[in-house]
């Protein structure tokens, strides 16, 4: 234990005194406040806040990732290349203890720097409304959509398989099935049609959605939506009447104890919009209904369609601060993974090769979602080759883009503890741990000394 500690302390000293960490630290210490003043966004307070947090957090996260990779590789490879390891490894220390010490040193350094920089970002964010002398209305907007952590409830895709099966049989008996088309394809088409029908409303037609366990902490909640239309109206705007309230009232017509929200809105199509609803409409059991009616004011041909991700109910579920802390933890998990990756690379590669290796992995992991999706568009023959080789490898990597910190703070989306735990388990406890064990095995059996005759 004492030797692990000694190595860890030495690693931190090395990172600081060899000025690797210092360069990054100074860079961030200068850039973060500058960003605070220059980030303007769309000139509103909300825009400023979102731009600043987005840039500052991404920058901090990115630079710390680079720093982690560089330090974790440098600390091992420089010991081997400059041969200080000769005198260290011949002391009563096992090789795994040396590697563990180095890893702990890098992680401690990460934790300290991450705390420092995110504290700066947090402070600037909190004090930004005062600096910018925002108007009352801007403050309210910022409090509603930024200084909060909103849980979002989606509408799941409805199960239409039975309906599709019925329809298929019906067509089959009538003999109306198109010839030369395989059954799977017809089923897929029918499913698509059925689901679209559930999300579409012609003029005068209502749509009803059900949300359970809605427990807003603040005095309002938000419906976030996007319209698609069958025929584009002349001004690209449509009318919609929105309702919200006790689900039982809408479904069974029972007396509602809570008020019912009803209002007509006009919104542009193919953009996301939010409408604010007072929280008092939510019944005690949290069983909320949201209804929409395609208002007769619209042109008769206009059918309004909600895309699959086109409707969400958002409400405050936690404070901004605790959400911010969880987001920082998310960054920390990423850094721990990279530290383990750097240790692995340095256990058998020289400094430049190890750096290259880690950067390739880092960037691939950063775009893994995109890369994985792109496989689906490959031709069938090539696609098969990739699905069985590269896709499998990429799935082993952590999906940094899925756990992107800005994704949560910018729309003030709640990062739940369960999501965070899942990320910790997957990224740190499984992937990083396995990588580290692997690096220990390699380091255990390699020859430390360089060959000189």
């Amino acid at each position, binding site marked *: 234990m004492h030797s692990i500690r000694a190595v860890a302390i030495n690693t931190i000293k090395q990172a600081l005194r060899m000025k690797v960490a210092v360069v990054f630290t100074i860079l961030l210490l200068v850039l973060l406040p500058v960003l605070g003043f220059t980030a303007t966004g769309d000139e509103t307070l909300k825009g400023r806040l979102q731009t600043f947090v987005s840039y500052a957090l991404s920058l901090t996260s990115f630079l710390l990732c680079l720093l982690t990779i560089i330090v974790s590789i440098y600390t091992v490879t420089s010991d081997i290349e400059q041969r200080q390891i000769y005198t260290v490894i011949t002391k009563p220390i096992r090789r795994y203890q040396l590697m563990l010490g180095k890893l702990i040193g890098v992680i401690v350094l990460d934790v300290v720097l991450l705390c420092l920089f995110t504290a700066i970002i947090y402070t600037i964010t909190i004090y930004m409304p005062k600096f910018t002398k925002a108007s009352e209305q801007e403050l309210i907007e910022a409090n509603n959509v930024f200084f909060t952590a909103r849980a979002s409830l989606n509408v799941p895709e409805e199960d239409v398989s039975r309906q599709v099966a019925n329809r298929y049989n019906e067509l089959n008996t009538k003999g109306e099935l198109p010839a030369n088309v395989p059954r799977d394809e017809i089923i897929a088409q029918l499913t698509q049609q059925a689901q679209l029908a559930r999300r579409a409303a012609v003029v005068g037609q209502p749509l009803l959605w059900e949300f359970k366990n809605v427990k807003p902490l603040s005095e309002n909640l938000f419906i976030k939506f996007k319209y698609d239309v069958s025929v584009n109206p002349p001004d690209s705007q449509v009318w919609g009447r929105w309702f919200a309230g006790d689900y039982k009232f809408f479904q069974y017509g029972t007396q509602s104890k809570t008020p019912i929200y009803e209002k007509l809105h006009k919104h542009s199509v193919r953009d996301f919009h939010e409408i604010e609803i007072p929280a008092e409409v939510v019944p005690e059991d949290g069983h909320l209904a949201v209804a929409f009616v395609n208002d007769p004011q619209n042109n008769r041909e206009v059918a309004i369609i909600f895309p699959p991700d086109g409707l969400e109910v958002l409400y405050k579920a936690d404070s901004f601060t605790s959400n911010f802390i969880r987001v920082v933890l998310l960054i920390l998990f990423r850094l721990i993974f990279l530290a383990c990756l750097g240790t692995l690379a340095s256990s058998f590669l020289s400094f430049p090769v190890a750096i290259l290796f880690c950067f390739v992995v880092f960037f691939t992991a950063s775009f893994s979602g995109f890369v994985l999706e792109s496989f689906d568009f490959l031709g069938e023959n090539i696609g098969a080759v990739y699905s069985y080789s590269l896709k499998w490898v990429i799935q082993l990597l952590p999906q940094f883009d899925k756990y992107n910190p800005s994704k949560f703070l910018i729309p003030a989306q709640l990062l739940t503890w369960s999501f965070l735990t899942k990320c910790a388990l997957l990224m740190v406890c499984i992937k990083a741990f396995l990588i580290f064990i692997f690096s220990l095995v390699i380091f255990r059996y390699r020859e430390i000394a360089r*060959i000189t005759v």
Partner: protein
Amino acid sequence: MEYAVETFSLTKIFSDWWGRAKVYAVDNLNLQVRHNEVFGLLGPNGSGKTTTLKMLLGLLHPTKGKSLILGGEGTDPKINARIGFLPEESYLYRYLNARETLDFYGRLFGLPAKVRKMRIEALLDMVGLKAVANRAVGTFSKGMARRIGLAQALINDPDLLILDEPTTGLDPIGTRQIKDLILKLAERGKTILLCSHLLADVEDVCDRIAILYGGKIQTQGRVRELLQQTSKRQITTDAISDTAVEKIKQIVQDENAECEVASPMDKLETFFIRTVATAQQQAQPTSGAVSTTKIGDFLTEQKAVENILDKLVSAPISRRAAAESTATEKVAAAESTRPQADEQLLSKLTRSSEPSESQAVAREKIQTEPVEATTTGQEQVREDILDKLIGESDACRDQDKTEKPQAGDSGDA
């Protein structure tokens, strides 16, 4: 545990990328280093000396064969706790200062803070770097780095010291100091394995040597036996008159032998040391290392049991000589005078005020003395007691040694 270091047909083949054998760096090496001896591994560049040491310490894996070091593997932390290693160059963390460097290594041994601090100060004092202890090691000259390297090798009070080219980069005084230190440590019962191609160093300090070439042992044995010219005799006298010289020549000629007469030369080393010592006495300032003749007190002396043994035997022979004479083989009688020679030599060296007498001369004097009678007689008297006691004391020492690292651990906890 008969030997401190033992290798069994140790072989290291460096192969090329395709796995074809390219170089036999070490070839079937069978090396035995006894306890409490100074063993020198000699050879030209690339003869496999350093490769052998690296295999002993587990920095390289042998292609074939194996090695035992203090009776165990070179990678075992328990064994490592009893070894001090100085690599061929002092590879140090450039950003640490001298004191931090030693502190780091001390922590690796789990030495308690108090002990660590005490030892660091003693070592800095000993290698003459106390004045520059707070300077980054990266700014040190090669010789100064070497001194720190030596200090880190001693911080755990090792039983076995492995030194790879210990004197490279050192000034003549530093070289002399390291050699003295090696002798002093040997006197305190440490085993020292050193490799070098500086023959003068090896000749001065080693009990036994092996000469490597092409990874094979070409010859090995006691320095004295290997170097002594038994067909010749040397006589050194004070300055005597020419007539006396003529008389001696006459006597030699009567024996049908040839005789050369000349004044002995000082070694350049001795002369150099004398000059610098004078300068130091005049207290001229220097930013470099300072020469000292101190030795860290923590470096353990021989055990109490062995002192009793000495008293019982009641003869002024050192323990080392006694142990050796009874260990495995009958040793030549000339050997037992060797420690006496060292003591004499050391006492002269440590008194820097009178360095006038060449130690080389001192040694030669002793070498030419008829030695058989002085020691063998003393030994024969008590040989039975000696055997018995040495058996016991060896056991005691072993026990003590195995306990030492554990004591260090518990102290830290």
